[in-house]
């Protein structure tokens, strides 16, 4: 199956007041049609910036190098107007906070139809009909009436559905969902994930699901990439990562994820130590100061990503 998105050796730098930080280092990822790729990692690990770069949406102080191939076309070298014809049309993104993702003074309907008019050249009535149909598809009740509402009149869950509907309006080949459920309460989270799954299955969209919560992607992702300090530290089929994590960081992430099947849980585990500071990364493996299995070698040498893990340990299961 041809890959919809193929990221090769992506680096993202930001120029900041005292120099330059590298938020994403040598990241390579791919996602195929109808497939879901889960991206996990703590806050600041570069999950969002990887895909902001892929969308060409980096802040003005950011630069991306490497390749982001979308159907074989390197997005990084495209002109802004060429990207604008891709964005919202063939590749789309849904953000974390549905409360602030819609323009406050525009009716929901106007924001949806604008996208269709822009990319599909539809007239108003056609655009309106298609937008209503899409709202109904993401299970928004009374879709027609919601079109006339303003964002502040909708709940968070509904707004996120509107965002997903907006992202799917033009039938994109790629949907990037950046922590789409983090800002929502648990029951709504599950509904939103259901909507994403359903859309992935019915529309055959390639989905990238970014989260810091492994539980969120457990039921949805086919493949998972775990990021730490801007690098991929482990990648593989979702089931393998959940069953036999190969990197100590993945293992600690799993230990932090509350499991519904473990009833007698006393307290939540957290990963010891501070998340890394990109401006002062530790030498060697960036995770070594927090790693329970740290070896002398880890402090000086950076483990390359081989066989789906970036770790010198031969077998994590033996070490633990």
């Amino acid at each position, binding site marked *: 199956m041809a890959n919809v998105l193929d990221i090769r050796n992506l680096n993202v730098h930001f120029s900041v007041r005292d120099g330059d930080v590298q938020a994403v280092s040598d990241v390579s990822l791919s996602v195929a049609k109808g497939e879901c790729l889960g991206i996990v990692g703590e806050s600041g690990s570069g999950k969002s910036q990887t895909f*902001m770069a892929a*969308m060409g*949406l980096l*802040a*003005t102080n950011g630069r991306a190098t490497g390749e982001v191939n979308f159907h074989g076309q390197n997005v990084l070298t495209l002109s*802004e*107007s060429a990207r*604008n*014809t*891709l*964005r*919202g*049309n063939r590749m*789309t*993104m849904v*953000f*974390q*906070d549905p409360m*602030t*993702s*819609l*323009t*406050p*003074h*525009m*009716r929901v309907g106007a924001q949806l139809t*604008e*996208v269709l008019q*822009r*990319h599909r050249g539809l007239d108003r009535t056609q655009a309106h009909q298609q937008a209503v149909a899409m709202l109904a598809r993401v299970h928004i009740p009374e879709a027609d*009436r919601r079109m*006339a*509402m*303003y964002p*502040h*009149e*909708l*709940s*968070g869950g*509904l707004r996120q559905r509107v*965002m997903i509907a*907006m*992202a799917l309006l033009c039938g994109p080949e790629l949907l990037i969902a950046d922590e789409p459920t983090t800002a929502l309460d648990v029951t709504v989270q599950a509904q939103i994930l259901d909507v994403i799954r359903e859309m992935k299955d019915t529309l055959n969209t390639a989905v990238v699901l970014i989260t810091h919560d492994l539980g969120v992607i457990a039921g949805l992702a086919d493949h998972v990439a775990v990021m730490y300090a801007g690098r991929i530290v482990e990648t593989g089929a979702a089931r393998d990562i959940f069953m036999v994590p190969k990197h100590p960081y993945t293992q600690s992430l799993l230990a932090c994820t509350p499991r519904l099947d473990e009833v007698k849980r006393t307290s939540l585990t957290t990963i010891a130590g501070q998340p890394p500071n990109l401006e002062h990364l530790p030498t060697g493996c960036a995770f070594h100061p927090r790693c329970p299995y740290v070896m002398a070698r880890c402090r000086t040498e950076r483990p390359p990503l081989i066989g789906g893990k970036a770790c010198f340990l031969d077998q994590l299961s033996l070490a633990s």
Partner: protein
Amino acid sequence: MSDVIFEGQPAGRSLWQDAWHRLSANKAAVVSLVILIVIALVSIFGPYFLPWRYDEIDWNHVEALPPNFALGHYLGTDTVGRDLLARTLMGGRVSLTVGLLATSVALIIGITVGSIAGFVGARVDQALMRFVDIMYVVPFTFLVIILMVMFGRNFVLMFIAIGAVEWLTMARIVRGQTLTLKHKEFIDAARASGGSTTNIILRHIIPNVLGVVIVYVTLTIPQVILFESFLSFLGLGVQEPMTSWGVLINEGAAELEINPRTLIVPAAFMTITLFCFNFLGDGLRDALDPNDR
């Protein structure tokens, strides 16, 4: 947070409608708005209903007459026998027009420059904002005098000149607002849906800065009116027999001891107008303040 719409509140109520609702609950603001509308209407239409024109000299009484209903001088005349009410209303027309037009000029330039500088950022921002800084430093009165000398005293030129200064602050305000909006998720979302820079500035940035801008407009109009008075005071404003509140106050001030009426009448109109704009501005700020929601 619920998606139940409050009873009696129809769905599809914009933030503007909410703000209007809050504004109409503010007595001082509503009264001010009504007074302003009345002053504007009276200034526009009043002169047609008066027996005397603003530039007509009552040759039988070439002197400052006290109010005299029989002669149709409801507020008396000025020292050369022109009807004071007619002149004050005409002056109101001029002052309000200058206020509105110059503010519109400031608004258009300020919003354009501010939003582009803020949104595009980097070099464009640097270039535009340094230009604004330089303009700030130019002694403005001096500039206006040069313009007036070069092009002659001229009504259009005056409001262009005033607008050309007032836009500087407007541009800074709009730029500041744009910078905070730029990092909001809805701007990223708009870009992620393929919106071009122009589209985003026009549809997503400018409508969102309008709230702040409108408050500033209500503060700018009185500033411009005062500025026009100042220019008139220097003899650079409108030309006789055309008049403005500034010109009238200037003339009245000279007569303060003999005929305080010629100062009090235009000064009262102008003061009330300025006060009303300020109250309205305060009310608008409260009504539009998103933190209050």
